[in-house]
């Protein structure tokens, strides 16, 4: 048996080559006592180029939110700021943490978090530029807390 078409050309044999160095992490720390976010308001965090796969978004809660503010979502939005999947990465997570600092992850898809590593699509890649954004889904204004947003990415371009 033989391949009908063989395009290997020894590519891959001498790894790594020019495809290395495509994995990266983007981070941003937000002080919500400065950048208040009322209920259902959205914060744009990172402009993600087309062709970049965001595998996961982790949150490091450095300073806790107030105890009356306990839910947020993280997901994808178009450049026009229209939701693609507003809770694709993290759904209904809690910025109020009794012990800080702490990492908040949402690795499993339930009814939401469609981009989850487990049972989801293991990230999101799009053929147009998009925005990774944060939504305060709590009824109270998020006006306290320091949160670091960490996006684990692979550049497929």
């Amino acid at each position, binding site marked *: 048996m033989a*391949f009908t*078409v063989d395009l*290997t050309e020894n590519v891959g044999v001498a790894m790594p080559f020019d495809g290395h160095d495509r994995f990266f992490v983007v981070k941003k720390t937000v002080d919500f006592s400065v950048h208040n976010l009322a209920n259902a308001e959205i914060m744009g965090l990172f402009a993600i180029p087309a062709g970049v796969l965001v595998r996961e978004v982790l949150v490091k809660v450095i300073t806790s939110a107030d105890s009356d503010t306990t839910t947020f979502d993280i997901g994808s939005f178009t450049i026009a700021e229209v939701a693609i999947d507003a809770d694709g990465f993290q759904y209904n997570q809690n910025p109020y943490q009794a012990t800080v600092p702490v990492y908040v992850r949402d690795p499993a898809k339930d009814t939401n978090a469609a981009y989850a590593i487990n049972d989801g699509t293991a990230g999101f890649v799009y053929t147009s530029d998009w925005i990774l954004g944060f939504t305060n889904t709590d009824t109270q204004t998020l006006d306290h807390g320091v949160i670091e947003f960490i996006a684990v990415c*692979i550049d497929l371009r």
Partner: protein
Amino acid sequence: MAFTVDLTTDEGISLPWSGHDKHFVLKKTVDFSVAANKLTTDRYMALFDIPGGVLVTEVIVKVTTNADSDCDDLNVGSFEADATPIIADGFIDGGTVYASTAPAYLRDPAGETYSINNGTVGFVRATDWVLGCENQDAHDLVKGVFTFIAICEDLRF
């Protein structure tokens, strides 16, 4: 309490160390309208030689130009060097290469042997192998431009 054996020797403290730069991406663009690249039913195309010890975690196909609408069933998987299938549809099974809107990213993150979800999260073995694709459609694959993207981790260091 103390560790009975402590082999940490400070590794991990000052990341990255010798294990950095082992993540990489392989890419190859194939124009199936070129005579030499046409694939009839059940024919295989070799895309990348993968060394033993390299883990391919996912293969993504970017459909830049559509296949014909009557040819819409592509597998991506693993093969021996002599084109014998290991798991010919391990990464993508029955991929839709006639996208309604091209360009589009084609992924198969769940349900296949090597899938990130419910699978083995990629494929690695001790000996070299070939990453390839198969035209599983009853019609010849004679049109379309696809970029095959393999996300890899070199475990050999």
